[in-house]
């Protein structure tokens, strides 16, 4: 890899000002996540949650996935780098998802529910 080649590799990478803007976006999303947590905890006079738990969980998960994608695409440069790196990341995530599904499927078979 020559210095010129190395320079070309980084030609599409964001500049420091853009990195800072991304950090601000990530901070705002984190603040929204935490706010959602407290909104989800809020209860009415009868002790019931004011917002459905599933709605709060979904919103937090979506925001978390958004933060994940922003860091991977811009800070880890997958948006600008060779596609092969994306395949490694997506492949790893897909396999991790399969591992999770396998473990979830094993749980009832092993009868590890409330007995532990």
């Amino acid at each position, binding site marked *: *890899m*020559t*210095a010129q080649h*190395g320079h070309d590799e*980084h030609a599409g*990478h*964001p*500049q*420091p000002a853009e*990195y*800072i803007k*991304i*950090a601000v976006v*990530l*901070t705002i999303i*984190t603040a929204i*996540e*935490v706010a*959602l*947590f*407290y909104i*989800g*905890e809020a209860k009415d006079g009868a002790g019931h949650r004011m917002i459905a*738990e599933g709605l*709060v*969980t979904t919103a*937090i*998960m979506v*925001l*978390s996935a958004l*933060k*994940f994608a922003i*860091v*991977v695409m811009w*800070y*880890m*440069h997958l948006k600008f780098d*060779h596609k*092969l*790196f994306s395949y*490694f*990341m997506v*492949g*790893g*995530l897909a*396999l*991790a*998802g399969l*591992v*999770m599904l396998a*473990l*979830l499927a094993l*749980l009832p078979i092993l009868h*590890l*529910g*409330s007995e*532990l």
Partner: protein
Amino acid sequence: MSSVSHSAEHATTTGIDHRKLLIWAFLGSDCLFFGSLIATYMIYRGKSIDCPLPHQIYDIPYTSISAFVLLMSSLTMVLALAAIQRGDHKGLRVWLVSTGMLGLVFLGGQFYEFTTFVHEGLTLSGNLFGSTFFVLTGFHGAHVTVGVMILFSLVLVSMRGGIPASDSLTVELAGLYWHFVDIVWIVLFALVYLVPSPVPNIECAQAAVAH
């Protein structure tokens, strides 16, 4: 090392540097590692038959600050990379030290959190929540520790003139590992701390610690 020998060393059939390919292969495999630990934590959520439980001991404002600190360390890491790419060696060291210090702040926060939890009765072998929580977040902390060591090693190498601007890839590889540690925490912060956990139908003898 001359630029000619450097060029020959990294010439590959794919045109991609082997080191970068290797770090991405490692990060992909590490997804499996954390995937297994996260799945285990999620499966056993709300299955503890002994206290304390998550909602009794979590300190969300405190953990939110830790999450913010780690997010900002990703910013300082990319600023370190940008600095070396424009040949600014002093800037590289400043941002690498900043990243390492933020990592140390996160680790200190985690140490304090673990200590507090143990004092409140949550131990590695006390209940399912304790076992899965400490293993999952502890392994993440171990990754952060390795990352901090890499960062300060890079600072030392840089001070000896070992990172020329033409070889910014060395910093980029360290950065990829550091950002991976950050994205794992993004997932853990949401799943472990923020997503409401089912509360098992058990009576807790000790008073719940309100934060």
